[in-house]
């Protein structure tokens, strides 16, 4: 097919050299019109340029008119073929880079090419700096159907420069049509999609790009993605998996291609396109599930930390009121020592069984490979609503609004029975109060082998139960408490207020989980409950039945509503991360890019349901001094919000050896491994980061 053409290749080359010299010579002779076009088999090329140039920059191009069924190539030609080459031999102005309109995938027998079937314009900008805009360009292209024919040519352009540009309208239209298809520069995010991750499994010859759709429209279509690096990825269409707003592309790697630290793509919705350069590639060991590893710390130390952490939980605002009332209940007259010890042991059993059950659930999910962590209970809206119900009922009872005559009262610790239930309750209410020491132990628990992980959970339980059991077992200690009296009622009423505060906070968490309506649903349920209590107190006929019915309806309706809300709204959307000024949402790719720019990175792993996190945020991270420090040192600030289940953040935490929040990770400029800050932050700790930084620079 191409015999004729290729035989004359070398002579043509020699000829073109001579011709070029001649053209260069003629360049400044006015009215040169030699070779304003180029052509070869199945292709002819002409300029898309104004008749008269203006002074400023202008986008012009080479317009390739290609025979039907034949194609020319994109910058990455794909599995075979070659991109056209434009060699600027002379120009009376500044010439920019070639701008490549986004291509289409062209399956050619067993291969896939990236190019254009039909006509295409390769564009570039020029800024004239002479009275005439002169260009001399040497071109080489490849045009293919199944067989390929190379083409060569030289093109000159010589047009006057005046005050305003004057285009032939059809040329301008063509130029604009292709300019719209040139990828716009993007970083890790574009108006429609943002990059969640780029990863290459170590053992598979593949590479995965995960995009998250930004649009709120229904079921956004997956964009086409074209790799920029043909030496890394084949041009075959990637496998595409859509999961809600997340779109996962699995590309095939060129056999044996080494995985570079970063790579790039062009993504297109079919009308527009964006170019994503320098996306860092993570080499992942497998499907991205952390496998049990040696945490480097001896087990006994972790167990000790777990027991200490559990003991400290007793002082947390969510646990303290419940336990103190329970304890005071034991001081009353008629309580025997043995009875108290029994109570204490029942309580301990409740705590340990619950911890063991939660630990077992976590381990089972972990064995299945689930990316979840401690606090996962609070990532479920129904559990949060359940806690609201619980705390509301307890608070009302503490306030004396209602004397419970039934089982619920036992939970709140009034009567003798129910110590076991109090233990269960203590664990549930303690979950959000991840205290000091607990982070490391819980993080280890998710990485260690199952038996050691379970030992840590039990250790936490022992710690939580210990103070109560000790007080019960040693009456001497208990006797130091003031004698029972009317003050106990006053104290009980006082302790209702932390519980009300907890209810408010849980309502806020619910709002974060399911959106605005979370507040409404929660408060309506609370209202219905109080109304039912009131009804129940007045003994009209069947008012009790009415009250029970009301409670049942309120519970079913509210739990159903939040469950549906959480199911229907995918995690990424219902939780618009409060992008406080200067803080970016967690995006592994953007973080990698910031590090590549040499920026320091500070990551705040947080959750709405984590009180410690909120306190640190308000008192330290968002204080004026600390914000000024961060700004001064140009720190890339990331808020990794774990309020909802988010496998990416869970994975990032696991990589830090943690599985709970808060975690504060500090990456000095250029560092790949972070420094972890204490869970209770102080402003001077942040200042110390920069002090070290400055002294090490000197």
């Amino acid at each position: 097919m191409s015999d004729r053409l290729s035989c004359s290749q070398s002579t043509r080359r020699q000829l073109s050299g001579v011709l070029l010299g001649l053209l260069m010579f003629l360049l400044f002779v006015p009215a040169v019109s030699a070779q304003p076009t180029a052509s070869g088999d199945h292709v002819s090329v002409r300029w898309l340029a104004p008749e008269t140039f203006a002074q400023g920059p202008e986008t012009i191009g080479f317009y390739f008119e290609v025979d039907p069924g034949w194609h020319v190539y994109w910058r990455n030609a794909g599995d075979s073929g070659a991109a056209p080459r434009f060699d600027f031999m002379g120009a009376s102005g500044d010439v920019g880079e070639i701008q490549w309109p986004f291509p289409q995938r062209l399956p050619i027998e067993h291969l896939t090419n990236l190019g254009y079937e039909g006509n295409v314009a390769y564009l570039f900008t020029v800024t004239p700096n002479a009275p005439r805009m002169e260009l001399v360009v040497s071109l080489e292209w490849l045009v293919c159907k199944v067989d390929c024919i190379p083409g060569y040519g030289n093109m000159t352009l010589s047009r006057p420069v005046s005050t305003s540009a004057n285009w032939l309208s059809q040329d301008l239209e063509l130029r604009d049509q292709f300019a719209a298809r040139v990828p716009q520069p993007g970083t890790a995010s574009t108006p429609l999609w943002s990059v969640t991750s780029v990863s290459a499994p170590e053992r598979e010859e593949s590479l995965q790009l995960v995009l998250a759709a930004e649009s709120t429209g229904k079921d956004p279509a997956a964009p086409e993605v074209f790799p920029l690096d043909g030496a890394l990825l084949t041009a075959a269409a990637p496998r595409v998996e859509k999961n809600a707003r997340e779109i996962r592309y699995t590309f095939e790697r060129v056999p044996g291609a080494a995985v570079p630290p970063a790579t790039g793509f062009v993504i297109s919705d079919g009308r527009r396109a964006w170019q994503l350069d320098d996306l860092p590639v993570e080499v992942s060991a497998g499907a991205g599930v952390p496998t049990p590893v040696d945490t480097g710390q001896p087990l006994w130390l972790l167990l000790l930390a777990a027991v200490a952490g559990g003991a400290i939980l007793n002082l947390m605002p969510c646990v303290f009121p419940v336990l103190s009332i329970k304890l005071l209940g034991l001081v009353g007259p008629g309580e025997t020592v043995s009875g108290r010890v029994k109570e204490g042991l029942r309580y301990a059993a409740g705590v340990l069984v619950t911890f063991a059950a939660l630990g077992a659930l976590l381990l089972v999910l972990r064995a299945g490979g689930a990316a979840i962590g401690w606090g996962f209970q609070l990532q479920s809206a129904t559990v949060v609503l359940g806690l609201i119900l619980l705390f509301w009922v307890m608070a009302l009872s503490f306030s004396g609004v209602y004397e419970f005559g039934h089982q619920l009262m036992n939970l709140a610790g009034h009567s003798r029975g129910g110590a076991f239930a109090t233990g269960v309750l203590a664990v549930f209410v303690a979950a959000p109060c991840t205290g000091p020491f607990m982070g490391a132990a819980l993080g280890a628990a998710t990485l260690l082998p199952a038996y050691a992980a379970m030992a840590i959970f039990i250790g936490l339980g022992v710690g939580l139960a210990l103070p109560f059991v000790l007080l019960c077992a040693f009456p001497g200690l208990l006797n130091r408490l003031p004698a029972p009296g009317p003050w106990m009622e006053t104290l009980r009423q006082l302790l209702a207020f932390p519980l009300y505060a907890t209810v408010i906070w849980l309502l806020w968490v619910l709002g974060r989980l399911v959106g605005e309506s979370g507040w409404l649903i929660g408060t309506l349920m609370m209202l219905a409950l109080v109304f039912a209590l009131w009804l129940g107190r007045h003994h009209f006929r069947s008012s009790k039945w009415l009250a029970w019915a009301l409670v049942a309806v309120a519970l079913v309706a509210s739990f159903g509503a939040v469950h549906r809300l959480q199911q229907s709204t995918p995690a990424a959307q219902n939780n618009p991360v409060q992008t406080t000024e200067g803080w970016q949402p967690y995006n592994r790719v953007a973080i990698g890019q910031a590090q590549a720019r040499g920026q320091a990175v500070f990551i705040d792993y947080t959750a709405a349901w984590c009180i410690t996190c909120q306190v640190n945020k308000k008192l330290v991270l968002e204080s004026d001094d600390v914000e000024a420090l961060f700004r001064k040192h140009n720190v890339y600030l990331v808020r990794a919000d774990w309020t909802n289940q988010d496998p990416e953040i869970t994975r990032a935490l696991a990589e830090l050896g943690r599985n709970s929040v808060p975690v504060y990770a500090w990456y000095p400029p250029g560092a790949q491994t972070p420094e972890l800050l204490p869970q209770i932050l102080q402003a001077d700790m942040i200042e110390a980061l920069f002090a070290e930084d400055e002294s090490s620079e000197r």
Partner: protein
Amino acid sequence: MKAQDTRSKRSVRSWFGQWFGSVVLFAMPALALAVATPGEKAPDFSEVDATGETRSLKDYAGQWLVLEWFNKDCPYVRKHYGSGNMQALQKKYTDKEINWLTVISSAKGKQGYLEPAQALEVAESHKLNASGPFLLDTDGNMGRAYGAKTTPHMFIINPQGDVVYAGAIDDNDSANPAVIPKSNNFVAAALDASLAGQAVPVTSSRAYGCSVKY
């Protein structure tokens, strides 16, 4: 307490079910095709050459072997044969006891297909310096086993039978022979490094050229 407990468990379970399904999906191999991959064993082959002799991978056990895909009508093959570049490489390395086989995988009726007699003529006219006559992989089995995409697609196999290079002949995908002196020849670099006992600098590249006409 009980009510919301079972509810949350149910939601965890359904979520877990979805999640488990997706893991099963991810665990499936991305591609079942095994092709010649640097760092791995070279696929077996056994093909008849233009003189009717059968040549197999095992004939070259313990020796270096270069495989080159060829199509006389491909402009990129012409670039390297018209300039004498390919023949010079063949001569240089076969002189150093390195085996070099040139393979034609064009199917009958497709561009580049040659009957055995024609293949001998073309070898003559092209001054082929390979270790043997053209291998005639008319059914494409060998080409597909190696994942040969283009002509000229190059593979280097070490004496242990491992692929040490797969890809283009050099780093310049122009069809113009004038660029050859300025190009970085991946095959020569890999062979020189290997003979000097060093690691191959580039083990893989995008194989430019014309598609193999299976």
